């Protein structure tokens, strides 16, 4: 069985490096000299930059990209539909929260995109992690109920996909729903399911093709996968979302981190996300030096200080980063969503220097 390796698209704009926070690409910051694709004077917009990242990822050997969704990002459905015609094998992993979109609409959008791309849509279903953000979105359903709703949402979505579907549930009701004839018979998108709480893990057991976790210390990750297996009749595959900072030498890689660390500010938060609290617990009590957050060789828990997003990632030379990925494969990981800043250049770098070093069946 083969391992699927994705590369993230920066829906929040991209920054020049991890040395200084602040998006200079895609119009997410006030325009300054050197800002790229802001959509102003030259008409090029963030869609053009994202298209280049998608094409570069495709060329570098990635199967596709994760298009994340937060209040401050561009919308992944809009981006996937915009870029659908501009790649040939690239899969669009669309992140979305079931609460915002009706499942009939989600089915219709997905099937249209499946038809337009030859079946290259993948779902990253997000349920929790909202907190105050959830009300920003106009969604009042609370944390555990959101997973119940996600389950029902996917039941309805799959029912509509099959056709002739009638349903009366707690969150949704439909009568004789289905897709138009020109959109039937398409493959249902693979489901990547995130969430670290017990409610999430229970729902993942029912619906996930892939259970997707942020990177954590490997032991914790293995334990989490064990819980998901225990809660599933048919266990899903496992995927990990990992930032990588890989360089020719170890020193070069850590120097990049050190520079970012010196200019970084402390303290963020992520609502009622259990995954977020977990990741913070692994670095609780760490000292002030950036290397204090290296919880095991090359596994560093400070990425959230250098750019918006999860805490853990891999730092090291090309061989070290590849070795850690190999260990994760040995641990049972079937798919990776890798990322690096800036996403364009780092996609090319990782594709050229790290991916060729991956092996199966060895841990060192």
């Amino acid at each position, binding site marked *: 069985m083969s391992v699927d390796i994705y590369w993230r698209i920066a829906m929040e*704009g991209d920054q020049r490096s991890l040395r200084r926070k602040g998006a200079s690409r895609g*119009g*997410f910051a006030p325009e300054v000299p050197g800002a790229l694709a802001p*959509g102003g004077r030259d*008409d090029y*917009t*963030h*869609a053009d930059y994202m298209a280049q990242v998608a094409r570069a990822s495709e060329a570098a050997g990635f199967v596709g990209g994760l298009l994340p969704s937060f*209040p*401050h990002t*561009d*919308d992944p*459905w*809009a*981006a996937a*539909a*915009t*870029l*659908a*015609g*501009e790649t040939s094998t690239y899969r669009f992993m669309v992140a979305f929260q079931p*609460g*915002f*979109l*009706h*499942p*009939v*609409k989600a089915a*219709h*959008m997905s*099937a*249209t*995109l499946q*038809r*337009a*791309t*030859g079946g290259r849509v993948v779902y990253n279903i997000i349920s929790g992690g909202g907190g*105050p953000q959830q*009300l*920003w*979105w*106009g*969604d*009042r359903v609370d944390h555990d109920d959101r997973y119940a709703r996600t389950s029902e949402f996917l039941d*309805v979505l799959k029912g509509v996909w099959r056709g002739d579907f009638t349903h009366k549930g707690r969150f*949704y*009701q*439909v*009568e*004789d*729903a*289905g897709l*138009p*004839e*020109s*959109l039937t018979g398409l493959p249902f998108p693979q489901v990547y399911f995130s969430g670290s709480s017990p409610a999430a893990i229970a729902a993942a057991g029912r619906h996930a093709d892939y259970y997707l976790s942020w990177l954590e210390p490997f032991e914790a990750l293995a334990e989490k996968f064990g819980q998901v297996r225990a809660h599933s009749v048919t266990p899903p595959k496992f995927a990990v979302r990992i930032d990588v900072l890989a360089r020719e030498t170890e020193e070069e890689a850590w120097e990049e981190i050190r520079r970012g660390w010196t200019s970084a500010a402390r303290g963020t938060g992520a609502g009622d996300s259990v995954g977020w609290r977990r990741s913070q617990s692994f670095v609780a009590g760490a000292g002030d030096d950036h290397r204090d957050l290296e919880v095991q060789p090359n596994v560093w828990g400070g990425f959230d200080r250098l750019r918006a997003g999860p805490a853990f990632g891999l730092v090291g030379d090309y061989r070290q980063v590849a070795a850690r990925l190999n260990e994760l494969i040995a641990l049972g990981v079937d798919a990776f969503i890798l990322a690096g800043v800036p996403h364009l250049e780092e996609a090319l770098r990782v594709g050229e220097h790290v991916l060729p070093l991956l092996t199966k069946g060895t841990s060192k």
Partner: protein
Amino acid sequence: MNVRGGGITPAVHITLPAGGWRPPALPGFVTDPRPEAPGPLDHLGRIGRAAELAGLDGVLVPFDPAGQDTFVVAAGLLRRSRHVRVAAGFHAGIATPVYAAKLSASLQRFSGDRLDWRLTVDLDTRTARSQGDFLEGPDRYARAEEFLTVAKGVWHEGEFTFEGRFYQVLGGGLPFPLSGRVFPRVHLSGTSPEAVALSARHADVHVFSPDDDIESLIDRLPGVAYGLRLPVLAREDDGEARTAAGRIGFSGLTGSYEAVADAIRGYARRGVSEFFVETAPHVEETYRLGEHLLPLLAKETHHVG
């Protein structure tokens, strides 16, 4: 609507078909490298490009549950064009207004603010229920009113809080750079008191049907632009147009380019500025409109100016 040379040129939009398109199969011995089924954006994208190149003002992607998803199609058309406006048809049951606003803000960022909204309020009961939408009667207008209020609220206000019958938002508001884009022009239609009241509050364009009592509706809807859904079949002369119409059983505005231009000018004098033309086959007729009809409408403008 375009202002050129001091006058107003009616804006002409082409209405996309809902259905897919499939070319006939070639005989087996003829080399055919095409993929099995063309994607929805191949055919619809071709019509959008035709509208762009033929100088039309816009493309309407009408809501039709038997067709393709309108936002996916609209995004594809916007990506393939630089000038035409693209109106996506949808009803309020598809998503929360916050989400609809956010998705649309991204499309405005990607397209230079060329997305419009064609909001369908009335749906027949069967269609509505197959869409998971069980709301009926005047409530549908009440929900549409809230939907547009919330969507515009989060679009224009930094901190938007709303507590309504259908939607709640706390501290919403699109952040930079999603904020500051132009809100999609809102197209609405309908003749009922509820429809007219909704348009008076929220429409940028109220779209009539050819058999509506246009004068009386215009009187009740000051301050909005007026549009017209218009089936058109235009040819070199009236006889040719009638023959073509007879062949396909066409009913609608039929005649020579001059006659059709006259009819459109007539509507324009009554205040209608946006024409949503329905015609087929789409690519061919779009080029025909661009090459034969638009110059006549533009010429009229210069005389006025």
